[in-house]
C-alpha cells in the first residue's frame, strides 16, 4: 500500500490514529541517537587526521573522512522511507570498471558525494541536537506528565512529599497526579502535530541533499538504456554462438552418423534382420537431423545473415500456414535492425496463424527517409491486444532498444495491422570477393 507523505498525513483528520506519528517519532529519535555517535566518530577522525598530518599518514585518513558521507547518505536514505514514501535511489553511479580505485575515483568526482558530506556535517553538528530537542519537547515532556501517577507511587505516594513531573510543578496527591496525566495525554496529542511537521521538514532537507538530482537521474537513465542495448546485443551474440555450435557440432556429427548408417545398410544383407534394424536407426537419425535443422533455424536463421531481411522474411512467409503476400524492397540494414525486424515478422505471422482467423496476410517493407517501415496486416477478426500477449510486448521492448516503435491497430472485427518503424542507415556494401 502506498503511504501518504508526512505533509499529507498531517492534513488528515485521523492523523493521530494512524501510523504517521509513530513513524515521525521513530525518525526523529533515530536521528538523535545516530547523530551523537556520528559527531564522536567525525571529531575523532578529524582530530587523528589533523594530528597525524604532520607525518603524512593523516592526509589519507582525512581524505577517507571526506567519504564518510557515502555510508551516512545510504543510511539516511533508508531512514527517509519512514516518513517519505517517494523513492530516494542512490545518486551515485556504478563504476564502469571493478576495483576500489575506480570506485574511489568515481565517488570523488561525483557532486553527490560532496552533498552527502555536507549533510553528514550538518547532521553531526546541527540536526541531531535539534532532533533531540524536538523529541524531548514533543515526546518526553508529555510522557513524563502522563507518568505522574506512577512517578508519585514510586516516590512513596502522597505521604512522600510529592513529586515534580518534568520539574514543572509539585504534585502531592493522586487526583492532581491524574489531572497531570490527562494533561500529558492532551499535550501529546497536540504536540504530535509539530513533531510531524518537524519530521517532514527534516525529511525534505535530507531529500534535497541526498536524493539524486535531475541530471543524475538522466545519467542513470542513459546508463540503464545503454546496458539494455548491451544486453540485447549480448543476447543476439549468444543466439548466434549457440547456432554455430549446433551447426558445427551436433549437426555435422549427425550427418556423419547418418552417412555411416547409410554405408552400413549397403553392406548389410538386405534380407537379414540387421538391414531392418539399420533402416530404423537410419530413419531415426534423419528425423533428428530434420528436427535439429528446424531448431537451428528458429534460433538464428543463417539466411538472415547471408541474404538479409527480404529473403528471411520471405522464408518466414513460406512457412506460414496462412498464405502471405510479400512486398519487400530493402537495402541491407544493420544486423540488429534486420534481426529485430525478422523476429517481429515471425511473431506477427505466428499470431496471424494462431489467433486472427485470417485467410490471407501481407508483409510490406520499405526503407525511406532513414527509416525502415514494415507492416504485417491480415484480414482476420482483429481484437489483438498488445497488453495481453507477451510476444508483442517483447517485440516492442526489442524495438525500443533501437529507438524503434511498434504500432498495432486491431479493431474488433479486424483487420489487424502491425507496423514497426526503426530509424537506421543502410549497411555499407560488403566487400564481395
Amino acid at each position, binding site marked *: 500500500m502506498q503511504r501518504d507523505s508526512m505533509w499529507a498525513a498531517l492534513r488528515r483528520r485521523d492523523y493521530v490514529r494512524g501510523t504517521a506519528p509513530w513513524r515521525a517519532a521513530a525518525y526523529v529519535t533515530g536521528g538523535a541517537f545516530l547523530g551523537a555517535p556520528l559527531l564522536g566518530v567525525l571529531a575523532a577522525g578529524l582530530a587523528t587526521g589533523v594530528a597525524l598530518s604532520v607525518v603524512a599518514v593523516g592526509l589519507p585518513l582525512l581524505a577517507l573522512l571526506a567519504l564518510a558521507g557515502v555510508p551516512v547518505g545510504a543510511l539516511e536514505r533508508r531512514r527517509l522511507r519512514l516518513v517519505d514514501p517517494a523513492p530516494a535511489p542512490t545518486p551515485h553511479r556504478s563504476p564502469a570498471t571493478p576495483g576500489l580505485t575506480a570506485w574511489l575515483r568515481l565517488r570523488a568526482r561525483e557532486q553527490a558525494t560532496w552533498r552527502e558530506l555536507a549533510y553528514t556535517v550538518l547532521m553531526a553538528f546541527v540536526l541531531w541536537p535539534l532532533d533531540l530537542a524536538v523529541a524531548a519537547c514533543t515526546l518526553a515532556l508529555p510522557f513524563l506528565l502522563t507518568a505522574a501517577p506512577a512517578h508519585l507511587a514510586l516516590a512513596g505516594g502522597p505521604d512522600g512529599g510529592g513529586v515534580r513531573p518534568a520539574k514543572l510543578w509539585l504534585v502531592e496527591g493522586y487526583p492532581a497526579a491524574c489531572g497531570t496525566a490527562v494533561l500529558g495525554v492532551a499535550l501529546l496529542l497536540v504536540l504530535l502535530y509539530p513533531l510531524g511537521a518537524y519530521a517532514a521538514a527534516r525529511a525534505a532537507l535530507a531529500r534535497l541533499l541526498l536524493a539524486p538530482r535531475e541530471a543524475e537521474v538522466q545519467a542513470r537513465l542513459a546508463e540503464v538504456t545503454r546496458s539494455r542495448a548491451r544486453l540485447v546485443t549480448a543476447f543476439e551474440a549468444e543466439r548466434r554462438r549457440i547456432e554455430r555450435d549446433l551447426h558445427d557440432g551436433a549437426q555435422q556429427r549427425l*550427418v556423419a552418423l547418418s552417412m555411416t548408417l*547409410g554405408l552400413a545398410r549397403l553392406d548389410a544383407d538386405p534380407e537379414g534382420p540387421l538391414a531392418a534394424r539399420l533402416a530404423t536407426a537410419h530413419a531415426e537419425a534423419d528425423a533428428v537431423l530434420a528436427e535439429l535443422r528446424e531448431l537451428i533455424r528458429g534460433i538464428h536463421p543463417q539466411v538472415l545473415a*547471408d541474404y538479409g531481411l527480404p*529473403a528471411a522474411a520471405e522464408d518466414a512467409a513460406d512457412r506460414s500456414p496462412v498464405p502471405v503476400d510479400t512486398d519487400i524492397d530493402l537495402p541491407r540494414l544493420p544486423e540488429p535492425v534486420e534481426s529485430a525486424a525478422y523476429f517481429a515478422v515471425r511473431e506477427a505471422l505466428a499470431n496471424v496463424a494462431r489467433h486472427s482467423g485470417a485467410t490471407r496476410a501481407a508483409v510490406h517493407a520499405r526503407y525511406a527517409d532513414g527509416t525502415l517501415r514494415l507492416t504485417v496486416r491480415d484480414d482476420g477478426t482483429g481484437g489483438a491486444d498488445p497488453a495481453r500477449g507477451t510476444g508483442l510486448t517483447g517485440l516492442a521492448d526489442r524495438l525500443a532498444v533501437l529507438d524503434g516503435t511498434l504500432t498495432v491497430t486491431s479493431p474488433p472485427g479486424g483487420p489487424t495491422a502491425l507496423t514497426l518503424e526503426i530509424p537506421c542507415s543502410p549497411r555499407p556494401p560488403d566487400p564481395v570477393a
Partner: protein
Amino acid sequence: MQPAPTGPRRVVLAEDSVLLREGLVGVLGRFGHEVLAAVGDADALREAVATYEPDVVVTDVRMPPGFQDEGLRAAIALRAERPGLPVLVLSQYVQRSYAAELLDTGDGGGVGYLLKDRVGQVEQFVDAFTRVAEGGTVVDPEVVRQLLRRRRDPLERLTPREREVLSLVAEGRSNAAIAAELVVTEAAVGKHVGNILAKLDLPLTEGTHRRVLAVLAYLRA
C-alpha cells in the same frame, strides 16, 4: 567443358568438417569416383579446381574463414569462370534463396543443391551426384516442398497425383525415374507432366533438363 555421359568422375571436394569430408571421400570412392582433392575452405577449393581441372565439384555452403556462405560464393564464382562445370552444393539450409542463386548460374544445367541429410541416403546421393555430373539439375525435395508451399493458388488446380509428379520434376528427376518412384508406367508420367505443364501455362519442352528449369522458374516466380 562438355560433361561425359557416364562413368567414373574426377571430383574436387570441399567440406570443413573432417568427419564428413572423410565420409564423402569414402562414399564417392566406393562408387568408383576419384576424389582428386578434399579441402577444408573456399580458397583451397578454388585453387584445387584450378590445379586439377575436375569433372565435378562438391562443396559445403558454410566454410572458413567467415563461416557464412563462402562455399556457395565459391561455387557461383567457379560456375562463372568455367561455364558448364557441374557443381553439387551440400547445405544445411532449406531456404530457397541459396538454391535460387545457384540455379541462376550458367543455364542452370549441371547444378545440384542438396541438404546434407541426403548424404546418408548413400544411393540417392550418388544418383544425384551422377545426374549433376551429367549436366542435369537437382534440387533437394525439402526445398521443392517449400517452393510448392509458396505457390499455393495455381497449384490448387492440380490433382494430388499431379502435385506429386510436379515435385519430382522440380527435384530434377527424369520421367523414367519418376515412373519408378511412383510405380507407374513412363507413359502415365508423361501424360501427367503434359497436364501439369498445360495447367500452369508452361511450354511443353523436350528433355528433362529444360523442363526442370521451366518448372523451377515457375515455382520461384
